[in-house]
């Protein structure tokens, strides 16, 4: 499922604008992400999580991996999507992602396929931010209001 670096095109190196912020909580942090579609809000939420682990300016796009997440409902889908990304970072290939592109966003069967662009995390090259222990359902919100063009997600991560 991994593509060689040679397989990356110029378009793959395009860095999307930042559409997320971190909201402080007692001892944790809440990710708040938005976009022009719910798909974009999900992508931004994933990038927000990686941005909390390191400073993304230091990350180069050197490889691309693909993940898949499935669930029984939308909240479950967001939860498992982030959990898959955390897993990609925690084990081989230890990927720290600068950019995420969801290629399949199925809100009826609750399935996501996502391309993850980045490189292996290296202490020394990448500043050590905060370790994410787990994703939580705590106060999770998914705002999906196409008529107002309002697409936002809120997720608390356990740190």
């Amino acid at each position, binding site marked *: 499922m991994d593509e060689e670096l040679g397989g990356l095109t110029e378009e793959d190196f395009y860095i999307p604008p930042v559409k997320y912020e971190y909201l402080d909580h007692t001892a944790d942090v809440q990710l708040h992400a938005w976009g022009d579609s719910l798909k974009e809000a999900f992508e931004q939420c994933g990038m927000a999580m990686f941005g909390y682990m390191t400073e993304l300016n230091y990350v180069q796009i050197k490889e691309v991996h693909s993940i898949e997440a499935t669930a029984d409902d939308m909240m479950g889908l967001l939860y498992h999507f982030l959990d898959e990304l955390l897993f990609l970072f925690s084990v*081989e290939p230890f990927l720290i992602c600068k950019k995420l592109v969801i290629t399949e966003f199925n809100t009826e069967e609750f399935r996501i396929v996502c391309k993850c662009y980045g490189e292996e995390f290296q202490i020394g090259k990448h500043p*050590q931010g905060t370790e994410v222990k787990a994703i*939580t359902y*705590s106060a999770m919100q998914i705002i999906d209001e196409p008529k107002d063009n309002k697409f936002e997600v809120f997720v608390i991560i356990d740190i």
Partner: protein
Amino acid sequence: MVVRQYNEELKYLEKINPHCWKIKKGFQPNMNVEGVFYVNSTLEKLMLDELRNACRPGMTGGFLPGVKQIANVAALPGIVGRSVGLPDVHSGYGFAIGNMAAFDMSDPKSIVSPGGVGFDINCGVRLLRTNLHEKDVQPIKEQLAQSLFDHIPVGVGSKGIIPMNARDMEEALEMGMDWSLREGYVWAEDKEHCEEYGRMLNADPSKVSLRAKKRGLPQLGTLGAGNHYAEIQVVDEIYDKYAAGKMGLERIGQVCVMIHSGSRGFGHQVATDALVQMEKAMKRDKIETNDRQLACARINSVEGQDYLKAMAAAANFAWVNRSSMTFLTRQAFAKQFKMAPDDLDMHLIYDVSHNVAKIEEHIVDGKPKTLLVHRKV
């Protein structure tokens, strides 16, 4: 959550002595027992402020206040005694941090909840002593601290340096500190000074997902991040000379090392996996809780038993992890002081877990009972 005015909420709370508050039934729906929490005046203010903030109109914060969480736990099936908030109590996920609750093993409806253990299974602290004095350490403080950093991997993305393959991992999960002893990382007497002798016997690695094992493997022997630490400490005051003497702490200025860490990504994944399984079990067995974060399963259900066996494996992982760091700490000190760790008297004083569920015998209403005690601090 029941929404009332703050003044109305306070009617359910009663200060029964200067350090203890009672939470009466009705504060949250379906409470089986009362709640209780222990605080000094500073913590009391924090607890009541959490509640007051949650009562503000339009408040949709991420966390329920700790008092509400203690009351929600009091509503879980099979709870006995009271839902207890210990003096470190504050708002957490599902259970409050500092929340302790025991469930009657003989009641078929009793539950086990991963939220009552926490994501970092068998997070705990251990204290090592030395025969060094503060004045021995002071001149080389920087070098010693650097040496600890060189030996113990810390922070996000760090990888362990204790060699381990998938097969070692299976054995470590089953054996806990017995594995560390066999591999030569700890001293035999370390086990005597560790809760459960560093091994939970009901651990079953086959109940742990491959995903958790994959996350755990590269992280064994790493400290982690957040509030985890390996810290050089100095005895400042001795309160009980006899007890301190038994622990080998004999003088002011004596140098110790404290290690606070847990089961790393392994335990986090075990907890995450269990929460998914339990959501299904709750639907099947029609278990209702006041909060989605309080996912749980009957102790005697497949999900409940599988969780307890996987949790025990994670507890063993954490003991192997702290043992590995004990080994690395001893090496770091030995190199700096050019003395063997046993000549430096680097014995383990004690290792205790603060995120765990255990089966224990207690007296409830005058009768001995077998209880599943959840502790999360």
